[in-house]
């Protein structure tokens, strides 16, 4: 890898504030819509949908950082990953908070909903998976956990997958949006798997599987 160009060094200084600014755009849009009546006749449902959408969007952006870094060599992108990941957590917390308001904070209703309705079950599971990731997002945690940090944070793949499934299962008929997320998620997973598969193929295979041995 060549030394980063001067513009990349400059970008490295700006990436974190830029990621925060970008990541908070959906929240700004929701608040603006709230003040202008843009949330329509059913604001609770609208905000639920928008925060859910923003969660998935942030998760996909988070997952996109690594492959883009690998292809472009733009290592200055790295800090955006944590910022966008924390934005995803912010939106999922808002999403859940509104859901709890919507259920009237009744534990009975909530437990029944989580147990009986699969889309709620997977959505709730995805939230739970994101909690330890947000809690260990500090530098201190990274240092303390060492190699285990990396392993722990692979949970994001599962959380994002469950999030997409949650969206797919709740839609009544028009599957366009959840299918776009599913396709993006699949592409991002493939971008991670493909280099490993290629590397595995390049490695010399063990002797006994190398094909027919001619005498």
């Amino acid at each position, binding site marked *: 890898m060549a030394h980063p160009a001067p513009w990349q060094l400059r970008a490295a200084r700006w990436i974190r504030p830029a990621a925060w600014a970008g990541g908070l755009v959906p929240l700004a849009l929701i608040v603006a819509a709230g003040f202008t009546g843009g949330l329509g*006749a*059913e604001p609770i449902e609208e905000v639920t949908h928008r925060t859910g959408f923003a969660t998935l969007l942030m998760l996909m952006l988070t997952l996109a950082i690594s492959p883009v870094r690998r292809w472009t060599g733009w290592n200055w992108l790295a800090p955006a990953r944590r910022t966008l990941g924390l934005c995803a957590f912010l939106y999922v917390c808002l999403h859940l908070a509104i859901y709890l308001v919507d259920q009237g904070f009744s534990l009975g209703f909530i437990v029944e909903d989580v147990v009986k*309705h699969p889309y709620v079950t997977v959505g709730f599971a995805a939230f739970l998976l994101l909690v330890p990731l947000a809690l260990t997002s500090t530098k201190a945690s990274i240092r303390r956990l060492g190699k285990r940090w990396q392993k722990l944070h692979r949970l994001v793949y599962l959380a994002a997958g469950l999030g997409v499934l949650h969206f797919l299962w709740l839609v*009544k*008929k*028009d599957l366009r949006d959840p299918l776009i997320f599913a396709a993006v998620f699949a592409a991002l997973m493939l971008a991670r798997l493909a280099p490993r598969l290629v590397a595995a193929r390049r490695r010399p295979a063990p002797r006994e599987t190398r094909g027919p041995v001619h005498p």
Partner: protein
Amino acid sequence: MLIRKPEIPSSEITPEATYLNRRQFFGAAAGALAASALPTSLAACTMSDAEAAQRDEPNSFEDITSYNNFYEFGTDKSDPARLAPRTLRTRPWTVEIGGLCDRPGRYAFDDLVRPHQKVDRTYRLRCVEAWSMVIPWRGIPLRDVIARARPRPGARFVEFTTLLDPAQMPGQRRSVLDWPYVEGLRLDEAMHPLTLLATGLYGRDLPAQNGAPLRLVVPWKYGFKSIKSIVRIRFTERMPATSWARSAPTEYGFYANVNPAVDHPRWTQARERRIGEWRKRATLPFNGYPEVASLYRGMDLRRNF
């Protein structure tokens, strides 16, 4: 007819200021977070479900005409209000009445409606998606139109069809459902005095997004039974293959009676949110119209959902 517009005591009408406050609630996101920190106090100051179920102030004209499921114009609730007034031509409009009846025919909209007594009926509307509204409809009792067509003894069902014209209904360019939209009722349901052919709401002509110029209103059934922009009414011997029941038979049945005891496979039907309110309220059997219960005597409504 003994069915009158339900009277609402003025004491039960929410002041406009309270109603408007709700819209600004999410603007004050901090307020929402504060509320989530105080669950018990919030619960303590809200009315009980039984109390909530009693309150039936009509929704605003704006809410009724801006929040619509009308997939012929798109799957988003805001699509119909945005597109339908521009693209749907409701004049001239003809309705074909046919099938097993003695007086079939094609009627111009005015000829179909004019001979009948117009009535105003404020009904609750409960959507299968667990939201509800109260809507002051204007229309003609369906039973009067049926009586005029004189169904034959073999007729057991009535089938309704929506306009099929992707130029006027741009949502039909995508095969979200198998167009045209078809709904149906058993003849006795169709003849029930509560069943209305609506031509207007709030005393005005029906807006395009609400199913102009003519739609069905069956207040004890989920909203999707109340088919919009009707172009054909047919009397049949066999149960019509209705759009949502064909599309997802395990989720949407032919009867689709509002029933808090029978959940949708993916969500509960026990509660609903009245558009304009914060708290969910309990859903009532037959949407609070117990007088229709006799139509289903002896039927297992869990199976015939």
